């Protein structure tokens, strides 16, 4: 069982009191515990079980404008005594930084709303096994599927965030995650693909059979891919890839990248960075949302932010430290976004496929080809050639490249948004990118 609030609070207050006694002028502490149980199947048989029980504590101490931090998985008082002493000692020896401090007291969250993030249901390993049997049966139905691997994880966690300004809050969260990875083979090729479902509540999880079938179908249709020539062509990003482009946008508007001057979106607030129809929201109070939260990792209240309105950038994602440097107030985004998404576009998925007589539909990218300093983007890709709205044949061993500054101005979104991850996008078309192939 995951530890209760009372236990975590006791540890947190022990640390704050001790840090003060040892000479810290201010301090903050996060204590968390998570218990997770996973069962893996392979080729319809039990392959692995994994139980983890993890504690973590991290403490930041301040002496005036000096700051240092420690973290540990060992919550014994003996150990904490040594570490906090070490932390305060290191704080004394670390140079001052005028921007170091706890958040403004009036920005801290005053109440903790129940966002419906915790499901008490306990799924025994035998139930996980039943789910996976059903999933693997559906995944391996077609003879072209030569290997199936699937996994079910139940995770329960709890945390307390406390600081010397009197903030002390935390709450339990749960997640149930199932995934299926399948390998298909024909005379010419071997391909892999996957599907995945993750929810706060067990009863919301995708049906096992559908998940397995979806993974298998997506894999089989990738068989016998072709390589195409190099050309400029419209690219359609599947939702699971389009969300990555939104994540890159989020890192480019983080206050740390902005204050350090290492983002291609620096000084772009109130300027048009996307095409006219684009709206981007970060909404932390979605019930059962995978990224939902009451406050950020400093305790600052998080409100909904309309980051992009009709193509115009309205806000950066601001934490206390970088906010001070930029002379802006924290908007509760220390640690990043909550439920981040593009609002739906105006056309259906089918119409998007038909928008151009020829386009490339991308289902997977590999490589770390996003540079947020320059905006340059270049990654390996796998997908399908689309002609006149029809999927023609699979494609691989190509790269796609462009620059986000141009790419953002040429986005068309479908109206098929769903909340499958914490960051979500409808299917996305970008015109003007270059494909390198033969």
């Amino acid at each position, binding site marked *: 069982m995951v530890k209760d609030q009372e236990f975590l609070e006791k540890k947190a207050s022990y640390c704050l009191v001790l840090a003060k006694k040892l000479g810290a002028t201010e301090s903050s502490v996060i204590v968390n515990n998570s218990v997770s149980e996973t069962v893996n199947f392979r080729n319809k048989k039990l*392959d692995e*079980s994994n139980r983890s029980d993890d*504690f973590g504590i991290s403490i930041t101490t301040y002496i005036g404008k000096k700051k240092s931090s420690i973290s540990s*998985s060992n919550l014994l008082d003996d150990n904490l005594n040594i570490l906090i002493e070490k932390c305060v000692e*290191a704080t004394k020896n*670390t140079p001052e930084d005028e921007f170091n401090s706890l958040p403004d007291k009036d920005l801290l969250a005053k109440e903790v709303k129940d966002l419906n993030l915790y499901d008490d249901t306990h799924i025994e390993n035998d139930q996980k096994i039943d789910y996976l049997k059903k999933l693997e049966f559906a995944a391996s139905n077609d003879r072209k599927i*030569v290997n199936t691997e699937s996994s079910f994880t139940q995770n329960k966690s709890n945390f307390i965030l406390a600081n010397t300004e009197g903030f002390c809050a935390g709450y339990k969260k749960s997640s149930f995650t199932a995934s299926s990875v399948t390998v298909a083979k024909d005379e010419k090729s071997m*391909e892999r693909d996957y599907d995945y479902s993750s929810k706060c509540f067990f009863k919301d999880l995708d049906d096992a059979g559908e998940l397995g079938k979806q993974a298998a179908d997506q894999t089989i249709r990738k068989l016998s891919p072709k390589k195409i020539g190099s050309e400029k062509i419209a690219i359609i990003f599947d939702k699971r890839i389009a969300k990555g482009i939104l994540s890159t946008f989020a890192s480019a508007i983080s206050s740390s990248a902005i204050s350090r001057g290492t983002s291609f979106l620096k000084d772009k607030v109130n300027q048009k960075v996307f095409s006219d129809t684009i709206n981007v929201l970060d909404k932390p109070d979605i019930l059962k949302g995978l990224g939902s939260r009451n406050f950020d990792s400093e305790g600052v209240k998080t409100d909904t932010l309309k980051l992009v309105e009709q193509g115009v950038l309205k806000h950066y994602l601001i934490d206390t430290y970088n906010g001070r440097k930029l002379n802006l107030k924290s908007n509760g985004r220390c640690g990043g976004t909550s439920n981040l998404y593009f609002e739906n576009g105006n056309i259906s998925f089918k119409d998007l496929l038909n928008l151009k007589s020829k386009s490339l539909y991308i289902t997977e990218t590999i490589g770390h080809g996003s540079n947020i300093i320059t905006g340059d983007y*270049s990654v390996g890709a796998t997908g399908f050639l689309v002609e006149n709205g029809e999927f023609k044949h699979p494609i691989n061993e190509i*790269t796609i490249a462009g620059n986000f500054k141009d790419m953002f101005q040429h986005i068309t979104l479908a109206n098929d948004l769903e909340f499958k991850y914490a960051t979500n996008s409808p299917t996305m078309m970008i015109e003007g990118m270059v494909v390198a192939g033969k």
Partner: protein
Amino acid sequence: MLSMNNFFEKSDISRSEAENIVSDTLSKCDDGELYLENTKSETLLLDDNRIKNSSYNSDLGFGFRAISDEIVAYSHSNEISKNSLRQSSENLKSTLKSVKGTYNHEIPKSNKKYYDNINPIEQKSLNEKIKILNEVNNYLRSKDNNIKQVTANFLGEQKSVEIIRSGGESLTDVRPLIRFNVSVMLEKNGRKESGVYGVGGRQSYDFYLKDENWKSVCDEALRIASVNLESKPAPAGEMKVVLGPGWPAILIHEAVGHGLEGDFNRKKTSAFHNLMGQKVASEGVTIVDDGTIDNRRGSLTIDDEGTPTEKTVLIENGILKNFMQDRLNARIMKTRSTGSGRRENYRHIVLPRMRNTMMLSGNQTQDEMIKAVDKGIFAVSFGGGQVDITSGKFVFNCTEAYEIVNGKIGSPIKGATLIGDGPSSLKEVSMVGNDMMMDPGIGTCGKAGQGVPVGVAQPSILINKMTVGGTKL
């Protein structure tokens, strides 16, 4: 043993009681162990003209593993106590229900050690480290007026591990690891570009920092950034590629390394699974994975199952010779462990992983390679790479590259992704250089959510055909 962590010192369970639980749990299993780990690590970060972060981490825990046939049961916790160990034991037994195997007690022994038993964090005071970071910042900013940002960091770690096997056999290792990284951003005429360089390995900071050695790390980061400021758009399409020696060997790591790990081949999901004994690379191409090089980032005295590491020949003169194995995959594939069983930490199960993956020298020169190319690129430095094991397609991202026109190195080109096919790309290697070089000691390999430190090495090579992911058609 004396300087070793005593994991049971502050616990309510004695070593012999723990040994009994291990033996009782594993008696009818095929394999398994109790893995105990204590890691102390430190991060110091200078960024934007100030010390941004000074933090210290102390991580303690165990992972208890039981294997029956192909099934792995694993349980881990931070708490080394009677209660916690018993709970883990019950959890393993409940997964494996009825076991009727024979525990394999055999594990090879070696007295060789590839690094010293030191704690690099304690060898230099916080003040000394902060002083060097400030000197790095001042040195770089005084060197070039276009410098708009300097980030430098130290990462130091000491990891102590103990493996207790059924019957009470204990294997221990203490692993130091450090890394020093510098990144700079230049801005000129409204254009911004960056350069990154670092060094590291399993030894003390002093080895890398004495005699102001850190200046050469700064110079290299600045040089890469300066080259990129002058870069033009990279070409798009298939062409010849010359790779420089050293770090570009992440090509080897992605193109063939992952595909030769035992688990993917046991499961037949690797593009290489049916190619043992066959020609998978050009003649003259020999690739080894070596855990035994002194003080290297990817070296290990013993792996995370207690097996001494070795130099494993993967590809010899173009022929596929061996996969990299941990104990589980070796047993099922009826071969021996190559000492490649690794895990990020006690929270993770063991997987067969790379250590220092190296292509050995041939006898041609880099000059000969450049001269042999009419139109192509010369890639010197890379960010990282990734591979799809099953289709064999892999990518890696250039951070410093030049065009080659009519046998001569031309202007620098913007960072681009290169994509190729693992099983066929090494057959396209037409020249192997005589200039093999190790990487500077900065690699981390990710697999199944686990990061482990690795090394790579290679001489210059000429590849006849790869797709370059630029924007210039």
